[in-house]
Structures are given as C-alpha cells and as structure tokens.
C-alpha cells in the first residue's frame, strides 16, 4: 500500500518508494540516508517531528518533509 511517510504511526516500518528532489531539505535528507529503496522505521513522533531509523542512522524530520516522501 502506498502512502506518505507522515501518515505512518510510531513503530511502523516501510520502504521508501519516491521522494522529492526539488527542495534543498529533501536533497539533504537524501545525503543523510533517507532515500528511495531504503527501509525506514518510525521510532517516535513528537509534535510536528518524526524520529526515523534508517540502517544505523537516526534522523528527525518535520511532518512537512515527511509528507513529500512516499512509502510502501
């Protein structure tokens, strides 16, 4: 099932299928390990922030950014 990353509840795991390459923050996220084909787990949510685990990397991203990431 396809959906946006920001819709995932805490604890959920998914694979990134598509993400924006148009804005600087998305590109930064890509260089930090958040990119297509990678498995991501939502560790926690706090306000507008999501805490993600990708491999050995732990990233915090905003809801607005997560909305631009499609997962399966």
């Amino acid at each position: 099932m396809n959906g946006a990353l920001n819709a995932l509840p805490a604890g959920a795991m998914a694979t990134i299928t598509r993400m924006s390459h148009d804005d600087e923050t998305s590109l930064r996220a890509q260089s930090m390990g958040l990119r297509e084909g990678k498995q991501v787990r939502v560790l926690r949510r706090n306000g507008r922030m999501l805490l993600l685990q990708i491999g050995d990397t732990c990233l915090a991203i905003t809801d607005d950014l997560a909305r631009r990431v499609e997962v399966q």
Partner: protein
Amino acid sequence: MTVIEQTENCHDGVSVVRKRGSAGNKPSLVVAIAGNPNTGKTTLLNALVGANFSVGNWPGVTVEKKEGILDFADYTIHFIDLPGIYTLEPVSDDERIAYSFLAEQKPDVILNVIETPNLERNLGLTIELAEFGVPMVMALNMADEARQAGLQVNAGKLGALLNIKALPTIGRTGAGVKELLPAIAEAYQTQRRPGPIVYEDLLEAQLPADAQTKREQMEQATRTPAVAQKLNEAFGRSAPQVIREARLGLADGLYHQVAHKTEVRSRSITRALDKVLLHPVLGIVAYLGIMYLFFKISFDFSAPYMDWLDGFINGFLSPLAVQSLLAIHAPVIVAEFVGEAVLGGFAFVLTFLPLIAVMFFLLTLLGMTGYMARLPFVLDRFMSKLGLNGKAIIPLLLGLGCNVPAIMATRTMESQRDKLIVSLMIPFMSCPARLVVFSFFAVLFFPQNPALVIMAMYVIGIVVAVGTSMFMKRRMFKSNPGLLVMELPPYRLPRLRTVGIIVWSHVREFLIRAGKVIFTVSVVVWLLIHLPFGAKPEDSLVAQVGKAITPAFAPIGLNDWRATTSLIPAFLAREVALSFMATIYAAEDTRAPAQIDAGAALVDQVRALGEAVVASVQTLVTPALTTMEVQDDGNSALKTAVMQTFTPLAALSFMILLLLYNSCLAVYGVMAKEIGRKFANGFMLYSFVIGWLVAFVVYRVGLLLTTGSFV
C-alpha cells in the same frame, strides 16, 4: 606541495599552526580531514596532534575551523579539519567551505574519517572525495562501536577497491591513530590516486572526455546543457539527480562488498536513554533538570572566581599600581589612568573568564555527548510556535544569567538566520547586573510590591525579545522552517582532554577578539568621566554629554541631567549606574585611600582565592540558584538623593531604559565579534529606540492613570 599561506589570510587571530609551521624547515603537507558530522574528526585530530590544536573561524563565516600540526618523518603535517558534511554539493556554509577548500586550495592528502558503524551512509561522501583525484587515506573510526554493533568491515578489501589505505581507528582511546601518519606520508610520496571511479556505462558514455578529474567531468556534465539534456532523456531524471544516484549507487555496491552484518544489534544505551530523553513528558522533565544544572554550574560555580578576580584587580593590583606610581612621583592623572582605566579595563575582560570557561565546558560536553542534537526534537512543540529552532532555548536561558556567554553560545546553531535572530533576542533577557539596579529602584519607589515591579521588567524584556524575533523573521528572512531534517547521533562519552582543548581555544579567542573592544571602550568611558582632570563630576566631559542629551529624555520623565548622565557609564555594566550616581550625587566619596600594605594585601588575596574555591564547590551541593539573590545596596545617602530627583514613574522609565538599551559594553563586544559590527551597531540603535518608546508609553500611561493627564 601546497604552501600553507591560506591561514595568513583568514581572520582567526589565533593559530598555533602558523607559528610552528613557519618555524620548521621541513616541507609541509596539507591534509584535509573530511567526513560526515559526528564521525569523531575532532577527537581524532586531537589524538593525532595533542595540544598543537587550535579552533578559529573560517574566513567570513561563523563556522568553526579546527587545525593541528605535527612533525612526522620528513614532513611537517598541517591538518585542517573541514566542517562535518554529508555531501559536497555546496548548499550550506559548511559544504561551501569544504568544497572550496578541496577544489581551490587543493590539499596534498585527504584524510577521510568514517563513522564505521554507519559505514553505508558515510561511503557516499567517500565517493565524492575520491572524485577529486587527490591522494587519500581512510580512517575507519569508532571501530570498537562497529564491532559491538555486529558489523564486520574488511578494511583491506575496502582500501584495495578504492586504491587507498583504509585503517581502523578508535579516536577516543587513540588506538590505530598513529598508524595513519605513515599512511599519509606514503600516499603523498607515491601520489597514489583513489579510484578509478567508474559509473555505469550509460552515464559514462555521456561524460565529457577532456576533464582532468572525475569531479570536473561530473560538474561539466551538469553545467553543459546538451549533456544535461541527454542525461535527462536517458534516465528520466534531472542531470544532478542522475549523478547523485550514481554516486550513492556506487557507495552501496562498495558497502555490500566489504561489510558484513553478523547480527542486528541496535545501540542499546542510546535506545535506553532516548526512551527517557526523547519522551514527550519525561523528555521535558529531564530537559528542565539538565538546564537547571547547566545554569547553576555556569553561574553559581564561576561567581566566586569572578568576584575574586574583580577584587584581585580592582582591590589589590589597581590601588597597588596607583600607590607605586605616586611613590615614584608620577603625576596623579597617570597613576589613576593606569590603576583605574587600564587595570579596570583588564578587570572588565578578565572577570568574564571563569564564566566563559565553565559555560563552554558544559556546552561542549552537551554537544559532544549528542544531547544538544536532540533538543530540536524534544522542544519542537514549544519552539516552533515562536518560529525558532529548539537549540535556541540554551542561549536564551543563558541570557538570564549573563548575555555575554549567551551570545557566544549561539555558535552551536547551524543556521546563520537562527544565530542572528537569537543573538538579537538575548540582550533583552534581563541579567543579574540589571537586577541590582532594578531592586534598588523597586525597593525605593515601590516598597509595597518590589517583586512585582521586578517581575514586570523580566516580562517586558521577554516580550520585546519575542517581538524582535517575529519582526526579524517577517522582514528579513523568508525561508521555510517547515522543512527540516537533522541527525540524532548516538550518545558518546567525549575525551575530557579534547573538551579541555576546545574550551581553551574559545577562551583564548574571547580574550583576543572581544577583549580588545571591551578594553578600548572601557578606557574611553573612563576618560570621559575623568576629563578634564581635576574637574568636579558635574563639569566632566561625561556630564557635559549627559546635559546635552537630557532634552531627548524629558518626554520619558528623565529631565535631571544626573539621571541621563548615569546612563552613559551604565553602558560599561549596569551596576556601574548606581556607583556612578553615588559619585555624581556627591553622596559618596568613591576615591578609596590609596594606601595598602602590599605584603599583607597579597596574603589576603591568596586567602580570598582559597575561600572562592570553597564557595564554588559549595554551590555544587546547594540546590538553590544563588545568582539570582539580590543584596541590598545599603547606601542611604544615595537613596535620599535619588528619592529627591526621581518620581516613581520616572524611576520606572529609567529601569525600562536600562533593561532594554544594549545591555552592556561586553555584550556589544561579543556581538560585534559573533554577528559583525554592522549588526552590533544597528542593534544598539534599535534597542535604544525600543527602550525609549516602551519607557515613553509606560511613563505617559502611568501619568494618565495617576494624574488623569498625559502631560
């Protein structure tokens, strides 16, 4: 061979590197240390060079530049720690610095530092570095953590595939670090280039053939419209994205050839700590506790040393200097100039040292352990409402203790925009120096409710600070804070030695850079107060200036020249307003008798230092914050004189002005250093106008309420 002249041009005033580099006759090698953030580059550099380490700034920006130097074999090796970056696409300040250093300064060797547990992600940058075609050595750092996480890396194979030497290291213990040196020398001597880096055929076919390095090839491909167009057609994506993916793809392939994960073990300590520290409720409680300790240790622990330094210079060195100069028949003005202006100026600068050292120690600790990186996540709910990054809370809170280290603490903020906005908010956070003046006036004029008046001052300060931030954001910055990504590194215990060296670098920088401004202005203000020499206070230069500006303050109820004049020395430090008023109201003779017995006084000073040590240790076991306690100034002559010239409303107006206009000289000094003289000057004007306007409104509304008329 690269000549290391670039450090001569950069405006970091302190560089041990330069001094030693120019002294030795050995040929020098420039080694750029490059890697992702949190790979332990600084600790590794410290383990390599020991104390020959300095922290400065990259020219024109506030990004820290760390350097180190050491002699090895036939070379003097000059290490330059590039900012931690994820990619070399120049977007942020950090990336621009790293990119232009590699592209323009062309280091002799690149030392690529890898956070081994996170090898997969780190290799993306490695591929980009290898494209420069500069001899390269790889440090597979934190090798112990990788083992604990169940990750096995075949360093020999990784090195062979990249045509470089890859060595496991543990920066914190120093294991494997010294082996990097022969590898660096060898990489330089043999001029062995990494690679070749070869991408998939479809991409390679489109790359221009005439470029010297792979990096140039890739850059030309995106810059040449015809090539970019072809890539776009062949891959269905923009040329820059095709190149990004090709690099990451190569890195992935490399990773799978050399790494083997035996079992999936997460970082258990980090997980356990984060369960508490990132929890929506417990995280806030823990944060408040940590901040309380931070605040308490910064201010209470350092206060006894600050008081001692002040007493040592102003109460011992200064009178001793005056006495000695008079003894050799130096003119009185010379003796007083040396004793009060010069040594007094030094005291202004030096008394900040204990505070700045302790504050930077704690700040570095919070940063290196990984807690600081988590604040934006923990505090986002609150800070995003103000449109600020969660890290802003630390400098703002520090501002309540002292604005000077608070502004220096904005260095921990990555974005220039946030750093600037927070720096301009801090001076409105009321500090204990202002509290001294507030309590004097509040107790005198509002004896029924002094605490309420003081509280109102704090609130006015915070409201103006928030208003300033909103104004700045609306007017000057239109970026989108809604999109944000940051890495939360695992918790790690830093090496105390590294922390110590970083603290010392900051302290030295404060002394040299901000100290100069603070010292100079304090001497100028002293001259204004004391010239023409021998004149009565009411005839001094400062009084003449004070009298000239009185009409500008009449609308806010301050129409006595003595009140307006005391605003000028108050620029040195807020509490000086009171002692100056005492002089000018002739309520007190501030000239202390200049006869001291040097031997006995020295014994007293040593005893006082001992007491300061005891007092500072005691603060660690007392739960209350002593910084905020107020001592009553007990000068009743001054109180009577002030009562006669101020009305309660005028006193309120005076307090507001002292609260809001550029908090003090030292704040101006660090502001000029941290955000530039242009902003520091602009802020001085802005804060004065705001202070005047708020005082005007309060005074006039007060008049209306008490007398029924605005005038």
